[in-house]
């Protein structure tokens, strides 16, 4: 059984999973899609009312929520689309050019 950490181009034919199966979910978390961003959101915790309106609009599951409180963005996966910035009624999210 091949785990994602081992997935690389050195794997021989008998080291990759039969049929292309992957065992264990969510292995795409290994992939950094944060580097797609042009603009980056920022969460201003003081202004956040934890209304959660931003949460379901994120296509990249990059707004973590624990015990009914949102936390800072998952910048490894956030692609910077700006949808959350647009829906925040409290100005608790900014969306600006990212310095890379």
């Amino acid at each position, binding site marked *: 059984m091949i785990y994602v950490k081992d997935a690389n181009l050195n794997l021989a034919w008998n080291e990759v999973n039969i049929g292309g199966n992957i065992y264990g979910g969510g292995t795409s978390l290994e992939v950094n899609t944060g580097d797609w961003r042009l603009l980056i959101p920022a969460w201003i915790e003081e202004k956040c009312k934890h209304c959660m309106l931003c949460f379901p*609009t994120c*296509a990249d*599951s990059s707004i973590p929520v624990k015990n009914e409180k949102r936390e800072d963005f998952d910048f490894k996966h956030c692609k910077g689309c*700006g949808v959350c910035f647009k*829906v925040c009624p409290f100005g608790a999210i900014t969306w600006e050019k990212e310095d890379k």
Partner: protein
Amino acid sequence: MAYNLKQEASKPERFVGGHRLCAGCGAGVAVRGVLRALNDEDKSVSGVATSCLEVSSFLYPFTAWNDCFIHSAFENVAASVAGAEAAYKALKRKGKVKDNYKFIAFGGDGGTYDIGFQALSGAMERGHDMVYVCYDNEAYMNTGLQRSSATPKFAEVSTAPVGSKIPGKMQYKKDLTETIVAHNVPYVAQTTFTSNFKDFHEKAHKAHYTEGPAFLNILAPCPRGWRYPPEDLMAICKLAVDTCVWPLYEVVDGDWKLTYEPKTKLPVTDYLKPQGRFSHMFKPGAEWMLEDFQAHVDKKWERLLKKCK
């Protein structure tokens, strides 16, 4: 139990980041929402038709699916999921499967309205206990914006381009939701993303927990194909609903119910204007297209109101 977004948001995520869907893609939002509506104790098997969603969410060895996932082809997702559901019934009966599973088929509009329509019709008719979810972005986005039967009239797509003689697609959008209603399945609903996702969530939950086949048609905008800024996803959805271009309703055991009626029905131009695919409709001489589009929406809306009494 009343809908509580904070509680829903605190559930473990069943569809995670790191997939290759475009920034602001409606499909990702739709999948997350549908899976979130599962009860915590239930496991799920999702089948996905070949689509943007499929090629972006499971590139070997990276899967964005935390539950079970299977893809086999484009036109067969309903039959695929039906097969898994049939095996579940048999194995459950024999005591070989302990957990409770829910079965979900995801297809884009091409995979649902067009090439997958036969398998969908068959699975709905046979009564499998499954939910078919169409994430409708109104064209073949995976192959580069070709016309589907879900593409609205006049929209500019790559196989119905705007030319000097023909202004985009010349046929109205197929009404698939009504077609599935005609299959006499216990639950059919049409929804999209609204501010707090209450409409979406409640329909998805009902679909999962209605015994037998259920069908959800979700308008899931594609910023690239529709040519609007990605950050405007939610505004576009709201306009689709408030102009009655995409009415929100459900049909439970044949009873039609409108789940949202705009206080003020907005003109279709409010919805069309922000989208590049309709930009030619706003050029001088194209007024007839706007009138045609509006008249069609009005007619469909009036008919829907009658059905919902």
